[in-house]
């Protein structure tokens, strides 16, 4: 078999892997997409318990306005049929503080947010305006988010950067406002103290416009991807993990699967957690320095999760998300010794769609911070086969979470808990070796891996590479494909999509 006959292999059937497979197929590659779980898109697909559907990966996304970046990427991928639906325009994010009578209700749109927050914090109105204008400018300055510019080097390796905490703490003394302006760090799982402000702006900036979710949830997005992959003749292999990457002097030449099949490869795009890559490569394929760096990357925040059902409408999560801050400030949530009792909580409910998901089947999810170290003694156990001691510990954690949550949010007292998740659950379901919700951290304290590697036909994509979340995963796929097919060529094609 010559290299021209070999397919291009993509490891990991999440958003990044599926998006990259579609891009490569569009440029004429024969593509094999490999996912170790039984179905593609395990994270965004979610799951159901007792007839109630839960979204584990997709809660809300931004940048979906008609000329928004995600609209354009999805249009390029042939996913324009996904039924996106607006969150509540007057309040897409509700933020509750234990010691404040009224919830903060963030509206959609930069100027609307500035007006709203300036009304509540009149002494800080100049800072509020400058903060959101800075976010918008930094967001627009990225070639991946604003198609007027160029795709450019994503590293910023050589510039000294300010943290989000630094910008916010310099700008205002008000502890509530500081929390409001940094709350979205929970959506990428890195403390404001170590998040480069530019990185924050490029994630949080997407929530200024086009804030939507998918009617029917992540499984609808997953099946749109699946349909498109089938139309594009991408070969999907699910249910058997890659156990080794085969390599010779010229680069990667194939992968070995758990079921002992060998898939030849002309090139390889790796989209799983970066710490898995060195374990698949033979000795000598990469330098010890690179291997050690990938293995020592710190993960984003993990969580305890309650999966609940509720038969009736709850106005505080009606077309919006709810953040519950038990303490002002959120830095504590990211520390290794974070306590469940200190919050914050993030609550999301799938927007009911009477055709697809009636109210009583529309699951409600409550996230609280968690650390996998607390579960160290059960690290060897697998989901479904955990020891009794773990189950008792988990039950206590879940009961405690519910008790504290209801104390601050009594309007939820009719919810029924159907299941719970710990950092170990995240590890096993999200393919995250340390239970991190958003891959490895994009932090001032570590260097994120780049799409290109020293092996000429091996590339990396996924939340850990360029940026987290659905938008970040999609962008990382496009950047990696830009290296493979030619950046200019890909950008020219993208500019044609509206």
């Amino acid at each position, binding site marked *: 078999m010559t290299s021209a006959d070999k397919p291009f292999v993509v490891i990991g059937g999440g958003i990044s892997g599926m998006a990259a497979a579609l891009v490569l197929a569009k440029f004429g590659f024969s593509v094999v997409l490999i996912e170790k779980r039984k179905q593609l898109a395990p994270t965004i697909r979610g799951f159901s318990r007792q007839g109630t559907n839960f979204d584990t990966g997709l809660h809300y996304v931004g940048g979906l306005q008609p000329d928004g970046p995600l609209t354009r990427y999805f249009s390029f991928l042939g996913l324009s049929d996904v039924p996106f639906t607006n969150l509540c325009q007057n309040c897409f994010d509700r933020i509750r503080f234990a010691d404040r009578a009224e919830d903060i209700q963030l509206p959609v749109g930069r100027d609307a947010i500035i007006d709203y927050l300036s009304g509540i914090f009149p002494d800080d109105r100049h800072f509020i305006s400058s903060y959101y204008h800075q976010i918008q400018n930094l967001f627009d300055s990225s070639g991946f988010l604003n198609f007027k510019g160029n795709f450019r080097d994503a590293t910023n*390796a050589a510039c000294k950067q300010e943290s989000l905490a630094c910008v916010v703490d310099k700008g205002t003394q008000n502890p509530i406002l500081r929390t409001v302006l940094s709350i979205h760090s929970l959506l990428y799982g890195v403390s404001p103290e170590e998040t480069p402000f530019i990185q924050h702006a490029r994630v949080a900036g997407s929530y200024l416009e086009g804030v939507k979710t998918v009617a029917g949830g992540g499984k609808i997005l997953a099946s749109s991807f699946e349909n498109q992959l089938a139309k594009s003749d991408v070969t999907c292999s699910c249910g058997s993990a890659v156990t080794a990457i085969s390599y010779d002097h010229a680069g990667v030449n194939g992968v070995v699967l758990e079921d002992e099949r060998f898939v030849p490869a002309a090139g390889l795009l790796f989209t799983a957690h970066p710490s898995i890559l060195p374990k698949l490569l033979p000795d000598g394929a990469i330098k010890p320095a690179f291997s050690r*760096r990938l293995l020592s990357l710190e993960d984003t925040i993990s969580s305890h999760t309650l999966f609940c059902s509720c038969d009736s409408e709850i106005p505080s999560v009606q077309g919006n998300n709810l953040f519950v801050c038990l303490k002002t400030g959120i830095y504590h949530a990211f520390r290794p010794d974070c306590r469940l009792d200190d919050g914050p909580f993030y609550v999301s409910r799938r927007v009911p769609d009477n055709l697809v998901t009636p109210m009583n089947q529309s699951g409600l999810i409550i996230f609280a911070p968690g650390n996998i170290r607390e579960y160290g003694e059960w690290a060897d156990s697998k989901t479904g086969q955990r020891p009794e001691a773990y189950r008792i510990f988990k039950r206590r954690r879940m009961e405690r979470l519910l008790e504290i949550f209801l104390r601050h949010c009594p309007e939820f007292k009719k919810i029924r808990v159907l299941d719970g998740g710990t950092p170990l659950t995240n590890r096993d379901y999200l393919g995250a070796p340390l239970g991190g919700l958003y891959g490895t951290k994009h932090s001032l304290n570590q260097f994120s891996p780049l799409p290109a590697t020293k092996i000429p036909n091996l590339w990396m994509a996924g939340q850990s590479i360029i940026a987290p979340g659905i938008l970040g995963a999609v962008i990382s796929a496009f950047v990696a494909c830009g290296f493979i097919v030619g950046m200019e060529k890909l950008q020219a094609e993208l500019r044609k999509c509206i």
Partner: protein
Amino acid sequence: MTDQEIVQKAYTALAQEFELDISQMNPETRLREDLGLDSLDYVDMVVVLEQAFGVKIGKDPELTSVRTLGDVHEFILNKKRALEKIQ
């Protein structure tokens, strides 16, 4: 730690982590041309040095001017002096 010890420690760490021949390493050795380290390796080099010396180097703009092993020593010694000043 003396300056000489620092240089030795840096050589040992870089040789081990990049599989280099330590006998070929001297202050004039060019990272790119002689050792074959490119921009992708620079980031790994920073992490190797951080771990060897237990200091945070991070995304330091001065790194862009590092071309030879001599520049690497100078960079680390400057870091060390800066740290001593703080202490």
